[in-house]
């Protein structure tokens, strides 16, 4: 039991961001660089989430304890956009459904049975809330269009393979702060 209270990874420790493949911040989140500073850990986003997609991190996550995280492999984000409305600090910005960029879905073509030519599966295409835009079929094989993919993770959740052949990479979370944010801080 005692070990549960220790920081999650002894060597990565208290400062390692919990954001990673399939582990994402809720919609509209500011860059990870400033997320833990801006989030006041009020927990309202997790409270309003009717799908229980958003989980609040516990003390093992060091400075990130109390911040919200979505593990799309367990419960994906259904983009109901309630959390962005209740965030009191603007850590989750009020974006519309299409503007959400939690990450980008990436298909592992060596794992995907359709790409390997073993079977015909198009689950990721079927479950995508922006199908034909974010995922379309090329010769019956799924292809992602990063212009439209929100990173909601429905495709990851749906993928029938273990390990998953489609995963969300949090490519936007580690973008540097935009200039205006930095300028704002400087003032």
């Amino acid at each position, binding site marked *: 039991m005692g070990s549960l209270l220790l920081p999650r990874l002894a060597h990565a420790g208290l400062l390692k961001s919990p954001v990673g493949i399939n582990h994402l911040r809720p919609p509209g989140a500011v860059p990870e660089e400033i997320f833990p500073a801006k989030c006041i850990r009020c927990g309202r986003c997790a409270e309003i989430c009717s799908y229980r997609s958003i989980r609040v991190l516990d003390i093992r996550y060091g400075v990130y304890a109390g911040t919200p995280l979505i593990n799309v492999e367990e419960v994906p984000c259904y983009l109901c956009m309630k959390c962005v409305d209740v965030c009191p600090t603007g850590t989750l910005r009020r974006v519309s459904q299409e503007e959400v960029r939690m990450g980008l879905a990436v298909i592992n073509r060596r794992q995907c049975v359709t790409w390997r*030519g073993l*079977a015909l*599966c198009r689950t990721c295409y079927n479950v995508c809330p922006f199908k*034909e835009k974010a995922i379309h*079929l090329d*010769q019956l094989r799924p292809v992602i269009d990063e212009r439209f993919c929100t990173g909601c993770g429905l495709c990851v959740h749906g993928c029938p393979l273990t390990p998953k052949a489609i995963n969300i990479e949090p490519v936007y979370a580690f973008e540097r702060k935009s200039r205006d944010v930095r300028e704002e801080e400087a003032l």
Partner: protein
Amino acid sequence: MALSRREFLKRTAALTAASLVGMNLPLKVDRAQADADRWVRGTCRFCGVGCRVELGIKDGRPVAIRGVPQSRTNMGYLCMKGMLFYQLMRHPDRLTKPLYRESKKEKFREISWEEALSIAAKKFAESIKNHGPDSVAYYGSGQALTEETYLFQKIMRAGLRTNNVEGNPRLCMASAVGGYITSFGADEPIGSYADIEQAFCFFIIGSNMAEAHPVLFRRVMRRKLDNPREVTVINADPRRSPTSRIADIHLQFKPGTDLALLNAMAYVIVEEKLYNEDFLNNYCTFRVGKEKKEVSFEDYKKFISAYTPEKAADICGGNITPDLIRKVARIFATSPATMSLWTMGINQRIRGVWANNLIHNLHLLTGQLCRPGADSFSLTGQPNACGGVREGGGLCHILPGHRPVKVDKLRHEVEDLWGVPRGRIPAKPGYHTIAMFSAVNEGKIKAIWINCTSPAQSLPNCDKYRKGMAREDVFIIVTDIFPTKTTELANLILPTAFHFEKTGVFGCTERRSQLTLKAIDPPGEAKPEVWIAREWALKLAEELNDPVIKKCVEPFLGLEPGYELPKAIWTEYTQKLTAGRDNDLRGATYEVLQQLPDGVQWPAPTKEWALKGGTYKKFVRGLDPLADEHAIDEKPYQFYGPAHKDHKLWVWLRPYKGPAEEPDAEYPFYLSTGRVIDHWHTSSMTGRIKELMRANPYAYIEINPKDAQRLGIKPGDMVLVETRRGKNILPAKVYEGPMEGMVFVYWYDMAEDRMINRVTKDAFDPGSKEPEFKICACRIKRLSGPKPLKPYLVRL
């Protein structure tokens, strides 16, 4: 045989390279598959394509399913349903003991097989003694093996003297049967899947085959992609589906206006003289009305003149313009070989037979028939609707071997072949499906046996019929592998063996019969249906003191149920009942089917012919042995179908008729239903495969973005769907699928709130008696924002 690591790496390398240029290599690298001790061959349990599969067994447990690259149907490809159904064989929800309750209010209790069969026989016998033979019924399935359907209908007809033998194919392809018989004189397609690789124009109407027949659609797509300029794919559907997305032309018309569209295409073909005069003169006549009156080509021209493309475009709405109709008709008529493909969008209509006729008309006018690649090809939804029910006598009006019940000569022929006294089979056809469940509602049927299907969920307007099934004075026996919506209403549940737990034949869409071998024992006390039917018949014979019932199962007494019993039934059916009929299967014995994993396409009157694979194209001399046998002249095509004594194909004059219920001010939307690739029918099987259920945990309603905006509905919002019959509450999916003014719902979900057949309409085609699932009027309203929903499955 396990692959060496080096070999595995080399194969992976080759497959990755091949996938870049879209080449198919006959290789498999899945390691789980390579781990099985032995592979047992058979067909897939799901849709009507009839994919050849192999079940991998390790330590007596099923561990994998794989495709076979040499297969003629699927060429090694499978969809996820087919790949994963081995999980069902040892599923914890499997029914393993006979369950009984006196009243439908009580709880089920486990009983022995002896007791169960005695109760089943006693209840049927009581009902017959008190209310006559027509107070009992059998409702079967296009998923039962041919041997099962055949044995049940034999016991019902000859043993219990009733033609109340029906099956769910009535809900799925009865209109296609009607269409083939009235147009070509013989049921089932003329050509085969092999025509796909030779066709130059695909006319796909009323079918989302990319999801409902994915593996076959792959062949269509392959053909198109390999010859992008030469091959044209036309899809006609009110909904934009994955099928329409690869089509060159998508005709989006208002639901139920297909008859106008098809007649207008015929108009263009006639007006622009694109018809094939030789073919019409040699092989066709024109017919009209109930009396099947023969008329001239001039009469047909006069009739068709009412369907100008301008008028049809007006009726059809959507994106249909007169020019588009002309363009499509020209491509259809002038392509080197045109193949039409359709399913439920055409069949599930109150004029389903007419819609089928009108598709056939286009082929007859243009002579796009009997040549390689040219065919009018109806797709079937279930794995054995063709083989078991259409050919095996599984509907109330037909006896085995495509024999109508009404024809005295054919009925007596069957009685003689079975060795029962003449007059034993009643001359009057029994209740068709909707009539059968209406009779249950009215209390006219006192005992019904439901085998391998779930009418409580699959009947249109099912609430109405569930009321009848819930009556205490109706005794319901259900044979199934899992609890379903129907077992909830049963008195007696009998656990049966699943696919690969028994031996038997499935006959797929292209007249192909394939044998699936028993690989493992069924779990618990589950038994093959053929055993259940035989033992039940023996008890019935005792109860009713009728030796003729015993006579029905006498050839099968004492046989081992895993292989010998189905073999004996198949032998009787093929050698006696199909002899001399158009679906002659005498060559396709179990020995031959054992030798040919791809099975045999009938007609196959001799073993020699069957060993060549059977008949690829019916009616063509040189390709079809019966065409030579029944030839009346020197022409290359001989249309010997049993329904057309004149050996001609009939072009029908069928007027336009809209759907039974059109939208109005009160119910302004069209409601249509359909399938998603990951689930099959009522999801009692696919819902128990966790990978598939996770992908599609519940049904939703597809709404066009324009309608959604107008009604303030956002993705995920809970939407109330109301029709004159009931209501559903479903989450919304807003996307460019259905056309404006139309909504679309998947029908697999078992949850009461999301079971769409509670609201669909039970109007049916007067010819085929197939209900119009696909079209009714509804209204929709936003109820609330998104709500988390749970997947639902019936459990005991």
